[in-house]
């Protein structure tokens, strides 16, 4: 298989397989989790304005009082790489074009110089949070193979994408093929690892906020 054949495969059957596993995986995992259900709360609710599941879905993105100071790298690094990922994934013109071809949906992108910068900043932030995971006793203690593995499968698409655009290290065709392959690995892995928090986070925040809402705890 030469470079072109490799690229053709990842763009064709490879992409179909990865997207298929991703979609079925997400649906299955969501079913597996949320079909467990929960018991109705029979205690009398105490309603207070400003307390509900929906409030917590949004508010939990902001550090609670005192927390930013206690763990600045987690919050600042976390914000930067999450926003950075969003920018490079969804606001890069060639990505938007791909999504348009797949779904018909389209939106305006950002200039490629800006995406370049965002990619570098994202990678830098990811390296910082990785170092923090190695250095901080609590994070190192909690970390399993999955934590290092999911970091790598998230980092590689950004790195290969950036290298491809910059025409660095490997011929463009090969690097582009590797980039697409790394994205496919990410898609396949996402539903079955902690990366699935991208979906369950909304449910978790909502459940937590719902309990507080029921008790009238305004948070």
């Amino acid at each position, binding site marked *: 298989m030469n470079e072109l054949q490799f690229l053709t495969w990842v763009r064709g059957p490879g992409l179909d397989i990865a997207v298929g596993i991703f979609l079925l995986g997400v649906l299955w995992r969501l079913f597996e989790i*949320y079909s*467990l259900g929960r018991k109705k709360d*029979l205690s009398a609710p105490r309603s207070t304005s400003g307390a509900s599941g929906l409030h917590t879905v949004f508010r*939990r993105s902001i550090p609670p009082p005192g927390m930013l100071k206690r763990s600045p790298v987690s919050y600042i690094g976390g914000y930067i790489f999450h926003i950075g990922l969003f920018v490079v994934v969804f606001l890069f013109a060639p990505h938007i074009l791909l999504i348009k071809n797949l779904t018909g949906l389209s939106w305006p992108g950002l200039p490629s110089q800006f995406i370049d910068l965002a990619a570098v900043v994202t990678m830098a932030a990811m390296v910082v949070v990785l170092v923090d995971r190695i250095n901080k006793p609590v994070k190192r203690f*909690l970390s399993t193979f999955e934590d290092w593995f999911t970091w790598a499968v998230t980092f590689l698409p950004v790195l290969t994408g950036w290298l491809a655009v910059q025409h660095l290290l490997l011929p463009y065709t090969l690097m582009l093929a590797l980039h697409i392959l790394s994205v496919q690995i990410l898609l396949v892995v996402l539903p079955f690892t902690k990366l699935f928090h991208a979906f369950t986070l909304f449910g978790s925040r909502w*459940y937590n906020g719902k309990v507080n809402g029921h008790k009238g*705890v305004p948070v």
Partner: protein
Amino acid sequence: MSATLEKGVRVLKEVIDAPIASYFNSCVHCGLCAEACLFYTETGDPKYTPIHKLEPLRRVYEQEYTLLGRLKKMVGLSKAVTDEELDSWQELVYNSCTLCGRCSAVCPVGNDIVYMVRKFREGMSASGHAPEGIKGAVNRTITIGSPMGVKLPAVQAQMKHVEEDYGLPIPLDAEGAEYMVMLSSMEIINFPEYLGAIAKIMNQAGKTWTLCSTAFEATNAGMQIGNSDLARVLVARIVEGAEKLKVKTVISPECGHAYTALRWEGANLIGRPFSFEVKHIIEVLGEFQEQGLLKTEGFETDKLTFHDPCQLARRGGVIKQQRNLMNQVAKNFVEMPDAGYMNWCCGGGGGASAIEEGEELRIEAFKKKKSQLDAVKPDRLVTACANCRIVLEEGLEHYQMDIPVIGLTEMIAEHIPDKGA
């Protein structure tokens, strides 16, 4: 032993629901929950990271309720939960967790970690791995009627004393009274002023109230140990008493977990909504204050601060009332850092104060409270939970801090003129 482990694992499987599944799938091992937990912040030991305290429960979840986990279990790639493991987890689930809920308040993905610890305790208790101290408290509550072994005659003796001291009647089993007042053993034995305070406050407000001879103890060690069957027995006593006396409202005493047990878990434990309301005494006082039924004279002039009991504030939603009440009788009321919703636990809630072998750790964790107090240097510390009060007194004594601890209800009552309404 294997039969009990089996029972424990079965209970763990039963308690896992959609929220718990969602929480475990959302955790990204960021470790921020550790920063919210006083057992971690004061010791620096990563094993006290709240989400880590749930590791055995997480494995049961993965092995029983996920496709990949079941596959791994089938091919022998997963580690089953063992008795030794659960035994070693006792310190993490009981001694070093007061169910204070700060972790649940900070988790960025929204995990209600303390909800899971509460559920995990069900399995720990069913597999025989709960601490002896709480087991003893539960046994005494079931057989004698209270965790400290207090029986009705002791309550009646105290009622008599209070009636003599205050010149006010203490009604017992008065049918049709508006309020049924509950006590905690701690108050019966250590803080008799509470009952006198209630008598004065109710007399001034012109409200009818009663104690109940079959349900005077409000604390619920069954909930703390994590045994819903026992917790149900204890709640059912109160429900029977309240329904027999046809009261409108049951008042939970100055005790955090009694309030959570009755207010939020009670109806779920007995499987039906209550026919009466449940309020913490601070909520009732807050209502009296709003309705102008709480008339006080004079002010405390020394510097006072307020320790929010976790179950009342963060887990119970009663945050403003105690502040309004403080301001009614105190001229110099100052707040500690993090006061209110994010207040730090005394270190002995959730049954932890009943665990003898956890004392050293509790004293270590108390450094957090010490730093909060050092920041404002109060003359006295006010709170609204008898258990907090005992734990605070122990900690203050250990660190040689001369700060008396008082109950808010008593302090309010001291400012009610003796003639009454």
